[in-house]
């Protein structure tokens, strides 16, 4: 009996140490498989995407399957992460050196921070790759002359609307100025639907209203300068807030918009449009894809239409300028060479066609743009080709810290708790925290 107790204790101690060690190491384990790459033995790579369940996720599953099949010994482990959870999760992975080998890249200030910390690999594109991607999209993923992500699609932002509801409300043509939009809001209210849906619970969809007002009020030079100085002293920033505050006076958004999510479920802003509960939604080019997963029959909304953000009288910005995002994918500096090969594979015409079809979006490969046939995407593509210039979503452009504060401040304004000047001061205060 006496001898047994220490033996059991040692066993318990051993078990405790093993458990503790396992707990500590589990976080870093995922990327190690990729680090030790070699051409002869098998290679396992981790791949993070923000694609939502539906055709988009299926596309990536198929792409991974066919890439694995064409490259014996290569296994890509894909993980789909809900869009709103993605940034925080990626940041944690970057901070703990467990970066996935291939990961969804938002670009802008977020990419700049990763580049400064050597957390993302510069990419060298072959001539074939260059031919597969539009120069404009590639420019958005370039910093100091180096390319840090492969863009897969372009996502100009505009207002998606239901043609049926517009017809019912007696709206004959889409609005081109804010006063016209306000008149249409009144007409939609008269037929008892929410004029405009916005998912303010996620903050960024609400903030995009402010960003687009800023795009109309501020000149291109002012907006670019703010990207490096993070100072919002130009009066146009407050003016944009005033515009939004004035627009809010007509109560354009659905009831309870503050607790509405953007993309998840029938009660989300995309769901409201999908189910004809709301007339319009300001969103990027992924919206038709999101809406199609939320319609009652899970098919694209047949009466969906698109128009660019209306002009603001007297603004310094180009009325044709567009705000948008680029969905790109980056490679970790420690990733095996097969990681970049997978991205090159995604740029090939058949993959780009499948991508554009699955996400109902605009591919970067010009040869694949022929699959864009639905009227919604065609009108967005035409507007994009005519735009004076494009600007990245400001919460991306100005980095996670300031972007986050801008988003929260705009929500405050929309909830009646903040002021236009408060948006500007929130951005300045956030810069002090980071």
């Amino acid at each position, binding site marked *: 009996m006496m001898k047994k107790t220490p033996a059991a204790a040692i066993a318990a101690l051993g078990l405790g140490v093993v458990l503790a060690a396992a707990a500590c190491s589990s976080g870093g384990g995922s990327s190690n498989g990729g680090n030790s790459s070699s051409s002869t033995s098998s290679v396992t790579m981790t791949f993070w995407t923000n694609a939502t369940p539906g055709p988009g996720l299926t596309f990536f599953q198929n792409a991974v399957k066919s890439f694995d099949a064409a490259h014996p010994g290569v296994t890509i482990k894909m993980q789909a992460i809900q869009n709103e959870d993605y940034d925080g999760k990626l940041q944690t992975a970057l901070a703990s050196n467990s970066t996935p080998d291939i990961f969804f890249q938002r670009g802008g200030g977020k990419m700049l921070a*990763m580049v400064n910390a050597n957390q993302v690999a510069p990419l060298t594109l072959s001539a074939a790759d260059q031919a597969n991607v539009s120069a404009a999209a590639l420019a958005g993923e370039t910093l100091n002359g180096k390319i840090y992500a492969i863009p897969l699609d372009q996502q100009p932002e505009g207002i998606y609307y239901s043609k049926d509801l517009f017809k019912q409300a007696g709206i004959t043509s889409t609005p081109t100025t804010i006063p016209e939009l306000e008149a249409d809001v009144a007409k939609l209210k008269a037929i008892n639907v929410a004029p405009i849906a916005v998912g303010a619970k996620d903050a960024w969809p609400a903030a995009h209203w402010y960003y687009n007002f800023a795009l109309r009020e501020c000149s291109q030079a002012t907006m670019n300068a703010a990207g490096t100085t993070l100072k919002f002293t130009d009066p146009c920033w407050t003016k944009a807030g005033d515009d939004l505050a004035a627009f809010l006076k007509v109560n354009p958004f659905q009831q309870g918009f503050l607790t509405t999510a953007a993309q998840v479920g029938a009660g989300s802003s995309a769901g409201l449009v999908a189910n004809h509960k709301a007339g319009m939604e300001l969103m990027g080019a992924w919206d038709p894809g999101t809406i199609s997963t939320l319609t009652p029959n899970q098919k694209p909304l047949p009466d969906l239409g698109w128009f660019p953000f209306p002009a603001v009288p007297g603004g310094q910005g180009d009325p044709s300028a567009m705000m948008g995002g680029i969905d790109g994918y980056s490679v970790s500096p420690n990733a095996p060479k097969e990681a970049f090969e997978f991205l090159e594979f995604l740029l090939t015409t058949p993959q780009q066609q499948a991508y554009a079809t699955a996400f109902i979006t605009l591919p970067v490969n010009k040869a694949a743009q022929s699959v864009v046939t639905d009227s919604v995407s065609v009108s967005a593509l035409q507007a994009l080709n005519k735009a004076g210039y494009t600007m990245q979503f400001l919460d991306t452009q100005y980095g996670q810290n300031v972007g*986050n504060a801008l988003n929260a401040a705009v929500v405050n304004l929309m909830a009646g708790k903040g002021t236009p000047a408060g948006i500007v001061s929130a951005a300045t205060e956030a810069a*002090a925290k980071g």
Partner: protein
Amino acid sequence: MSHTLGNAAVGRIRRGALQVGDAAHAASPTPRARKRGRGRQRLEIALLTSPAIIVFVGLVIFPVGLAAYYGFYKWQGYGPPTDWVGLGNYKIIFTDPTFQQALEHNGLIVVLSLVIQGPLAILLALLLNQKIRGRALIRVLIFVPYVISEVIVGTGFSLMLQVTGAVNDALHNIGLGFLATDWLANPNIALWTLMGIITWKYIGFAVLLMLAGLQSIPGELSEAARIDGASYWQVQRHITLPLLGPTIRIWAFLSIIGSLQLFDLVYIIWGQYISGTAGTSTMATYMALNGRLAGNYGYGSAVAVVMFLVSLVVALFYQRFVLRRDLRGAVTQGVN
């Protein structure tokens, strides 16, 4: 567990030593045996407690120290921190009106939880301590919300409490449509909605504790009081409540700490961004928003340290001034 084993072993060693001593030379072998026994005892204690100590130090003490260290830096989480700002982060925290609001909400939640849940739990426990029909079923029903995961509760309530959700629909259907409101987004109401959900969720735990406390009160006391002519309420007021004191004080302690660290329900119902706007932000959601989500890991760590200190100070004060009575054995003295 390990403690018990250790004592049992020591007992055996001592008995063994005495037997040896009794046999012939009482004085000499005993100290040596004791010494050896004490060394063994230390070894056993070290072996048996080391897994727990390793886990505790590695997963609690070490992260707290690390957060304190990061809190002195402006740090975005990429690479090692280099931008030393001293107490700069703390200055920003204490001058940030949104943090002050979060702290205020935490304070309100602490007080309201005690004021609402305490009396309600005692009344329910008194009721469920009676022999009434369906008592077991009612006990289970009251305890069920406590067992359900916070995520399920949060998602369920956020769907039901939408403007077009089930609660408002039900109110319209029973002719109370004028009560329908924006339960979650109206800053004047949202905190009370949160209190309602918290009460529903955690009342079961309070009732469970109070019931256990009630059952440890000897029946003879109230019997004697009743023979002396005390009414039911007099018995509860002068016999039950004082004897339930230790239970109430422990429950209040757990409730206070839980309220100070409240995060999950708020985060699920109001999401990552808008709890501040709706007036339900807590220190923990402030930390998640301004630390992790904004990518300011240095600043977020400083907020974590502030939260830790607030909880620690409250806990120490409570133990020093409230729980001290229980440690001196107030119950037995009260009975005598």
